[in-house]
């Protein structure tokens, strides 16, 4: 046993898969301590807030400011305010005004502005320039100049008695506050989803639920497959025929279809995460049953099994001590694959709208489903779905790597 | 002395394991086979006899690697040739091989005739399909194989038939040397007999000129081959005629090996069978002295430190031991 384990951990594939899986599990365990609370709490009012650090504007105003004179602050402000269209329009103007733009980089704000201030003249009449376009350039010029002009915002608040606005403070362009001193700061590394929920918190919780679904599905499938395989293989005869008949039928009929039919029939209200998991397990045992059966048949007439039979050991004891240890590796491998396919099945069911009911817990599939329902993929909110896809892929990749590693240890012909 | 067909001089080859360790499986083997003669190789499993068979082909692919030595077939040294030249001019044509597991030696999804075509065309690229078929049919008929076999897949043939087909295909180009690695050990008795009969026919009809026969079944060697050599831990420990080797083995290992078998000859009744205790040495680090010393009942201290060379004695015999021939014979007498 110890030796086998050492061999297993010597397989680089198994080790890599194991480490990835362990890291995922570790994150699931540690993250809730760092960011406690209900993962389905809707903290945002809008949909799909971008990933980043959010700090309260209200608190920021009340935080004492330091004056910092940064030479490039204005340029940055201008650069940020100028869209690509503005830049292209400026280049168009230069071309019309026959300004030499040789070697000009459209992304180089400094060079662009220098050229602009040196040459722009709103009174200049250019060929083919419509009035609307002309006004557009005027507006552009004004807005750029405004940003560059030394300006302060004045903060007012209504007086309690008279209702008149009273000046409270000025905010100058050179005022900076330390983010660490702002009272309310919220980090949303993956933004929020369509319901305004913290995606990272939700993702961690969903990963946990999905892995549990995979595990339950795997346990159910392995239990059914193992029992049927053992019975068919060890008892043989008529029982074997019947079990194999059923197994063969369920091998050909796609489990995906059965899953849909059963999930739909159960109905939305009864469909908790564990029910979905059990249903998945019920539809994916055939492979285990087949491989266990063929292994048991080859073991059935081995000497040590015959010896046990002659010694009058009970069926249960023979199966537990003389058969199970020999097929354990296959069962473990089948179990790992079933966990991974269980997670995938849940995701696909949820995408069809047949996933666990939505009010209790998030699952990876449900997150995917919500993101798709709210068109996260077409409106550029990658943070709502891409981490989900990546998580599913990594879980399944790590499980499959472990499986391949085990396969190479237990089937030496496949070794490189 | 007849015309020497196969001469091997101090051949050394090694396996390289996954962990880049060298295993010296054939370590300085020399012997000769004359025209019309067959030589048997005996030894425990793992002694290097199958590796010797592979090494003699002059065509090495990982994990087997050539180190040094000469393989001379009918006067032509093939050990210096480049692999492609060996493949084209030697393999199948000069020297042919019958593998240990003939059950799986044929591609299961290919018709036998297609395989025969591939074999012949590898050496005669212009050979015409019809001509190949007639050649194959003629040869199969000569060897007593039904011609229908040619149009079957390997999976459709019985074990014995598969092995005979392998032998017929291996020798279709009438090679000078045939190397048979346990060609009959996996078969039932009847098929075994037919295979042996076929090997004899090959020699009698001149389709092969000499044969190296490897087996762990000593009685079979005595039956089939003219000479026998005994291999231990990658080296030859004793050579002689079949009769001499069975009835007068000199080396303690051959003596032990022969003692562990029954030969259906008069006078053997009543002798007890003995097994040799212990296991062969690790060939990753072969011992410096006699390789058999650890298991030898007669070993002295010096056996473990002296490198031991093959010593000739009698008529063309040789053995690899420090103790004198007469001394050993005397010891065996008194047991």
């Amino acid at each position, binding site marked *: 046993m110890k030796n086998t384990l050492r061999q297993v951990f010597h397989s680089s594939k198994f080790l890599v898969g194991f480490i990835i899986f362990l890291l995922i599990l570790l994150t699931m365990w540690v993250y809730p301590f760092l960011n406690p609370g209900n993962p389905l709490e809707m903290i945002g009012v809008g949909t799909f807030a971008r990933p980043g650090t959010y700090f309260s504007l209200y608190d920021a105003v009340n935080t004492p400011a330091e004056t910092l004179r940064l030479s490039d602050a204005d340029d940055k402000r201008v650069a940020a305010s100028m869209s690509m269209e503005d830049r292209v329009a400026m280049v168009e103007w230069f071309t019309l005004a026959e300004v030499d733009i040789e070697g000009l980089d459209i992304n180089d704000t400094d060079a662009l502005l220098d050229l602009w201030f040196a040459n722009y003249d709103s009174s200049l009449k250019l060929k083919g320039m419509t009035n609307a376009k002309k006004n557009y350039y005027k507006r552009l010029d004004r807005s750029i100049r405004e940003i560059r002009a030394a300006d302060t915002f004045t903060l007012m608040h209504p007086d309690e008695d008279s209702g008149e606005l009273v000046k409270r403070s000025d905010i100058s362009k050179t005022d900076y506050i330390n983010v660490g001193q702002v009272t309310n700061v919220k980090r949303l590394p993956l933004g929020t989803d369509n319901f305004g929920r913290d995606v990272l918190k939700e993702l961690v919780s969903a990963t946990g639920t999905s892995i549990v679904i995979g595990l339950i599905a795997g346990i159910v499938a392995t239990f059914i497959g193992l029992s049927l395989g053992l019975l068919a293989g060890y008892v043989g005869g008529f029982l074997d025929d019947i079990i194999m008949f059923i197994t*063969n*039928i369920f091998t*050909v*009929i*796609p*489990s*995906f*279809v*059965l899953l849909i*039919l*059963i999930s*739909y*029939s*159960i*109905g939305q209200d*009864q469909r908790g995460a564990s029910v979905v998991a059990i249903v998945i397990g019920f539809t994916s045992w055939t492979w285990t049953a087949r491989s266990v059966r063929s292994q048991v048949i080859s073991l059935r007439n081995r000497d040590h099994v015959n010896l046990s039979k002659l010694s009058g050991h009970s069926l249960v004891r023979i199966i537990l001590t003389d058969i199970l240890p020999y097929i354990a590796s296959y069962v473990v491998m089948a179990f790992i694959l079933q966990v*991974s*396919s269980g997670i*995938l099945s849940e*995701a*696909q069911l949820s*995408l*069809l*709208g047949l996933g666990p009911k939505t009010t209790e817990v998030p699952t990876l599939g449900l997150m995917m489903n919500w993101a798709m329902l709210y068109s996260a*993929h*077409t409106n550029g909110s*990658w943070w709502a*779905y*891409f981490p989900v*896809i990546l998580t*599913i*892929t990594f879980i399944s*990749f790590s499980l*499959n790597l472990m499986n391949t590693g085990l396969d190479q240890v237990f089937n030496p*012909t*496949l070794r*490189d | 002395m007849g015309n020497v067909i196969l001469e091997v001089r101090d051949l050394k080859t090694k396996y390289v394991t996954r962990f880049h360790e060298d295993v010296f499986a054939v370590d300085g083997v020399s012997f000769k086979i004359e025209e019309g003669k067959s030589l048997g190789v005996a030894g425990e499993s793992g002694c290097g006899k199958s590796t010797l068979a592979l090494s003699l*082909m002059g*065509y090495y692919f990982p994990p087997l690697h050539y180190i040094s030595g000469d393989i001379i077939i009918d006067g032509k040294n093939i050990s210096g040739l480049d692999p492609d030249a060996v*493949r084209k001019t*030697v*393999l*199948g044509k000069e020297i*042919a*091989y019958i*593998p240990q*597991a003939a059950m*799986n*030696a*044929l*591609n*299961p*999804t290919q018709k036998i005739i297609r395989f025969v075509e*591939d*074999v012949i065309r*590898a050496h005669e690229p212009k050979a015409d399909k019809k001509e190949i078929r007639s050649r194959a049919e003629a040869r199969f008929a000569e060897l007593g194989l039904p011609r229908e076999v040619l149009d079957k*897949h390997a*999976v*459709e043939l019985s074990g014995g038939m598969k092995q005979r087909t392998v032998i017929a295909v*291996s020798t279709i180009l009438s090679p000078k040397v045939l190397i048979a690695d346990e060609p009959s050990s996996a078969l039932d008795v009847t098929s075994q007999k037919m295979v042996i009969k076929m090997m004899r026919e090959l020699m009698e009809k001149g389709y092969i000129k000499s044969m190296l026969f490897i087996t762990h079944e000593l009685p079979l060697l005595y039956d089939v081959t003219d000479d026998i050599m005994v291999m231990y831990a990658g080296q030859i420990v004793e050579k002689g005629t079949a009769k001499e080797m069975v009835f007068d083995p000199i080396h303690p290992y051959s003596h032990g090996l022969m003692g562990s078998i029954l030969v259906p000859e008069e006078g053997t009744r009543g002798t007890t069978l003995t097994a040799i205790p212990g296991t062969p040495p690790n060939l990753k680090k072969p011992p410096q002295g006699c390789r058999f010393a650890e298991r030898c009942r007669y070993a002295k201290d010096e056996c473990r430190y002296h490198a031991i060379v093959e010593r000739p004695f009698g008529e063309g015999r040789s053995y690899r031991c420090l103790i004198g021939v007469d001394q050993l014979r005397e010891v065996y007498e008194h047991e």
Partner: protein
Amino acid sequence: MKGYRKYFGKKILWFFITLIAAVILNFILPRLMPADPVSAITGKMASGMTDASAVQEIYKRYEAEFGTNKPLLQQFFIFVKNLFHGDLGTSFSQYPRKVSNIISSAIVWTICLQLPAILVGWLLGNLLGALAAYIRKGFDKVLLPVALFLSNVPAFGMAVTLLVIFAVKLKIAPIAGGYAFDMIPNMSWRFMKSVISHYQLPFWSIVLVSIGGQAVGMRSMSIYELNADYVKYARFLGIKDRKIVGYVFRNAMLPQVTGLALSIGTMIGGALVAEIIFSYPGLGSTMYSAVTAADYPLISATTLIITIMVLIVTFLLDIIYGFIDPRVKAAQFDA
């Protein structure tokens, strides 16, 4: 030919047995469940109604419409009889459109998308797997982890990723549908062009997903075959490596056909979900809209059609396999 007849006979028998089982399951599973689809539909239709007798009235009407007021066995015979007439009932969400009508327009899209995509993915995957096994060093080191990773990207994940990259960001492919939304299906060149451009992303996402798994399987199968005894034997007969590699890949490919038959159900399942992402007008999207609209007859019919499709493909693959692998024929003689 006798062996083939037995094999095909067995396969045809199995096809019908599984077909019957599938029909029974499709009928019985929803009826075994505690929630009754008719009451679910009634509940939806009657939401807001306070008059219990009116609700009862609606329930009765749907019971009659779906025939659920009759005994189970009688319902089953009606179900089968209707099935033979191609009558799959009336859609609930697209009332009064016939379910068979909805499905027959969707099934063409699904078959035209999935069949070529899965086949191309299978072929490319096998080719890459074989290359990885043959070239090994370097190529294998890079390709294998990539293929392993790729094979674990769920089909819908690949679909979303491709959609975002090529349709949303690069804008070189349309975002959704089987053809431009402002067109009416016809045989014009303009329509075909639109169909082809909408076809690309769903097609390649299915191809990419199937490549990975196939490549990994083919690689280990090829490595297994490269170590087979017949490879060594053929080499020792002087057959060129290129020819031997041909044997190996043919033999490694055969189990991949069976593998495809076993995994086709899962692959189609994944591809159906990918259809939803692209709003492709196939069975996947039909099923999705049926689920969202709680259109019970449509769901039941879609699952049945998908099962039958999978059964037919599996059956055809079994038949093809019987022809290309001589071992099948031989096994029938043994049995």
